């Protein structure tokens, strides 16, 4: 009896097998035929064979060209051809750094995949799909590969965007091809894992438009739904489920869950949703240790301190920081990465590269006051963030920056934090106005942030002083009375004004610190964390900071 894997290979590659067999047969016949010829005719045949082959190839190319142009609508159709390769990945649980909770959940999924028979025996429902949600660069693909490795199944991977094509029906055809390949692999190996990255490209909520503008996305998604349903229907003659049905679909997306079509999220399709978050402090430490292990680094480097500094950084960000730090170290003629290399790398990534702009002294001074204002308010009033750097060197689209980071991950914000954010945003404006009497366009971004926060506090977070509770943005605007709107806006403005007054008072009070910061900035252009800390200590304003 032919082993199942051989049957699978025959099914999957029968065209190639047939071509190879025909070619071998033709070559054998040609050799026999040539050997039966006298040497003169044999030599003549061999001598003319290259030209004949060339002519035949040329004819074939011309024929295919004409056929494609006139009969099939051009070569662009060829791009519709799908190539799906089942791959056997070798990524173990131990290779997935951090994400212990997620790993535990994924481990359970693996157990379910491997123990399908038992699950069925007790009448449990077999898992069909797993949806991974989370921000980019957090290791969703990596985790999917680890699931494949641990379950010992082949892994077929495609990106959602690969299904998207201008031609209607192409996406659906690709979905069919993907599942056909998966079924073949499942037949040979007893199961298969299909991983669709960037699932949102085909899994967005379907739009049922009379104009048919979104039919392609709809049809692709419909096909995906049909394939996922169809998996349950394959049974052999004895009524037992056939191995072709053992397919687990893992989808990954960074789009919010409610952006995805509900039909996909219902049980029987993507049964289980795994939320993958950015790594916590402990995971970041592990990630730094892992990536630093791949490069030469100063052994005195405190991985914990790095992890604390890299709040909200994804694993991909951390990998990038180490990569960038290695470049910085090389540029500085160092054999090993040091803390300052990593700091510079993080700044380069977060703040962008420095720009060589020729600013007037007035512009520089305005920027210095603006940033110093931010820094003073941030340092004294902000409950969660630290000032890590103040700079009046232009970067990206700004003339200066006050670089702050939260001391730890925050998953919810308090009223104090939001008010402090507004005050920090307004501080640049107040500082400019105090010094020059007029302000620059540099405040536009700050105002936008402050207004947005204040508006949210009143309209949707119930954080105004008055009794306006509820999310007024959930109500259609036409159903909100003008009077209420006015009151809400007045509350927003009130928050704004209160914050403004508080900032003005603070900056007047702390003018010596402000002036000191401005002078130092104009002299040095950039102030590091320690220098900022020293200035505030000098004025007796030091507060307890985290030890990074």
């Amino acid at each position, binding site marked *: 009896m032919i082993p199942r894997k051989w049957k699978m290979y025959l099914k999957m590659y029968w065209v190639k097998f047939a071509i190879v067999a025909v070619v071998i047969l033709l070559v054998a016949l040609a050799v026999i035929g040539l050997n039966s010829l006298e040497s003169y005719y044999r030599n003549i045949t061999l001598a003319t064979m290259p030209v004949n082959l060339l002519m035949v*190839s040329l004819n074939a190319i011309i024929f295919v060209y004409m056929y494609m142009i006139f009969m099939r609508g051009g070569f662009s159709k060829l791009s519709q051809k799908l190539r799906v390769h089942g791959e056997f990945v070798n990524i173990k649980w131990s290779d997935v750094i951090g994400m212990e909770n997620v790993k535990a959940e994924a481990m359970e999924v693996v157990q379910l995949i491997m123990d399908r028979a038992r699950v069925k025996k007790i009448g449990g429902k077999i898992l069909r799909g797993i949806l991974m949600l989370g921000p980019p660069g957090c290791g969703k693909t990596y985790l999917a590969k680890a699931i494949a490795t641990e379950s010992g199944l082949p892994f077929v991977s495609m990106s959602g965007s690969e299904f998207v094509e201008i031609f209607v029906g192409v996406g659906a055809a690709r979905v069919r091809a993907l599942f056909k390949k998966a079924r073949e692999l499942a037949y040979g190996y007893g199961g298969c894992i299909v991983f669709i990255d960037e699932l949102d490209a085909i899994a967005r909520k379907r739009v049922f438009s009379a104009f048919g503008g979104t039919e392609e996305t709809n049809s692709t998604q419909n096909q995906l739904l049909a394939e996922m349903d169809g998996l349950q229907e394959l049974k052999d003659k004895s009524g037992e489920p056939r191995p072709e049905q053992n397919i687990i679909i893992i989808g990954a997306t960074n789009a919010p869950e409610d952006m995805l079509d509900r039909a996909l999220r219902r049980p029987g399709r993507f049964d289980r949703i795994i939320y993958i978050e950015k790594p916590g402090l402990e995971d970041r430490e592990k990630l730094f240790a892992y990536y630093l292990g791949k490069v030469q680094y100063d052994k005195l480097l405190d991985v914990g301190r790095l992890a604390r500094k890299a709040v909200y950084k994804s694993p991909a960000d951390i990998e990038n920081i180490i990569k960038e730090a290695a470049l910085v170290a090389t540029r500085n003629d160092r054999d090993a990465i040091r803390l300052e290399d990593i700091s510079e790398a993080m700044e380069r990534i977060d703040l962008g590269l420095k720009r060589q702009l020729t600013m007037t002294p007035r512009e520089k001074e305005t920027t210095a006051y603006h940033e110093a204002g931010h820094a003073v308010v941030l340092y004294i009033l902000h409950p969660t963030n630290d000032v890590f750097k103040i700079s009046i060197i232009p970067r990206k689209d700004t003339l200066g920056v006050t670089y702050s980071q939260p001391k730890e991950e925050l998953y919810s914000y308090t009223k104090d934090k939001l008010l402090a954010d507004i005050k920090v945003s307004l501080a640049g404006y107040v500082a400019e106005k105090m010094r020059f009497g007029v302000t620059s366009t540099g405040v536009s971004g700050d105002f936008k942030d402050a207004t947005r926060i204040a508006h949210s506090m009143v309209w949707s977070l119930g954080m105004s002083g008055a009794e306006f509770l509820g999310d007024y943005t959930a109500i259609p605007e036409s159903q909100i009375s003008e009077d209420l709107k006015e009151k809400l806006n007045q509350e927003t403005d009130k928050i704004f004004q209160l914050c403004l007054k508080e900032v003005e008072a603070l900056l007047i009070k702390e003018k010596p610190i402000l002036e000191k910061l401005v002078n130092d900035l104009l002299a040095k252009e950039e102030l590091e964390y320690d220098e900022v800390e020293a200035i505030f200590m000098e004025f007796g304003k030091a507060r307890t900071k985290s030890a990074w």
Partner: protein
Amino acid sequence: MVGIKKVLLLCAICYILCAALTGCGPTYPKKNVKEAVAGICTQEYGVNVKVETYDKTMFIYLPLKGLLDYSFNLTRPASEKINNVIFTAARVALSTDAKFDFYCVIAHDIKMPELQIVIIKNVEDVRRLFASDISRGEYMKRVLIDLRWSPQAKKEQVVKDIFNKMNLDQKWQDQIISDFFRSEPAAISDIGYWNDRFYIKDITLAEFLAEQIANRIKIEFRESKDLKDIFLLKSAKGLYAARKDRRLFRFEIMAERGAIGAGTTIENSDKIFEKALSMAGHVLHGYHFKDYDAVEVFDQREGRSIEVTPEELENFRMKKVKLNEIGK
């Protein structure tokens, strides 16, 4: 593009496999050539032949029954057998490492052995025909076919007549003829088969060309409307003579003047010279033959001759010069 690359790669692999697995060695090695020809003729065509080689020429003797009909034309069965033997000779000559330049088939009727058909072919001409480098018509003109009385038989007959008149014993007649009147031929025209013996020599390209040009001149005088009305060709002989440091093609033409369209004596001679030189130029150029110093045409009737150098002949062929501007 990837698909095209794959197809071309597959073609190349197939070709290399075919070439590597078949090899390019000769089918008929030099040492087995005679047996090969005789074997093919016997096995494939049921014809018994004798084969002899002389340097770069292969000779095949083919005895037949009913070679000619009452009108001295080849009979159909004889013609088929001769063609089969010629084809066999070509197959072997092309697929051997013996490097033959010519092959010659000598056929005669066993009832009338004195009358022989001698067919001489240049192996390179055959190769060029198969490669479509020359037309079939041109190829046929390049073949020497001669129906002739065996020169050796003729010679022996004369001697035997004398011996008979002398009442010499038959046994002695044969002995004397064998000892004193059997010699290797000096020219292509002497090649033949007589009394179980080949009379052969190595054929050189130069003498083959001389014979071929003479043959073509004969055909031209017979077929060209311009010439056949004016002349009645009696004979055209071609020979190549290499003496000391002079190599000469000489063509002797004997043509009687016809009744219609004849001009003056000189004009008629010039027409013969013109046609003969034109033919010589064409043939020598066709074979890229340069191993000669002069071409001479002799009009036997008028006793006039013309001798041209290779350069003059080439210019005349290219119609760059006229007849009165060349020769001496």
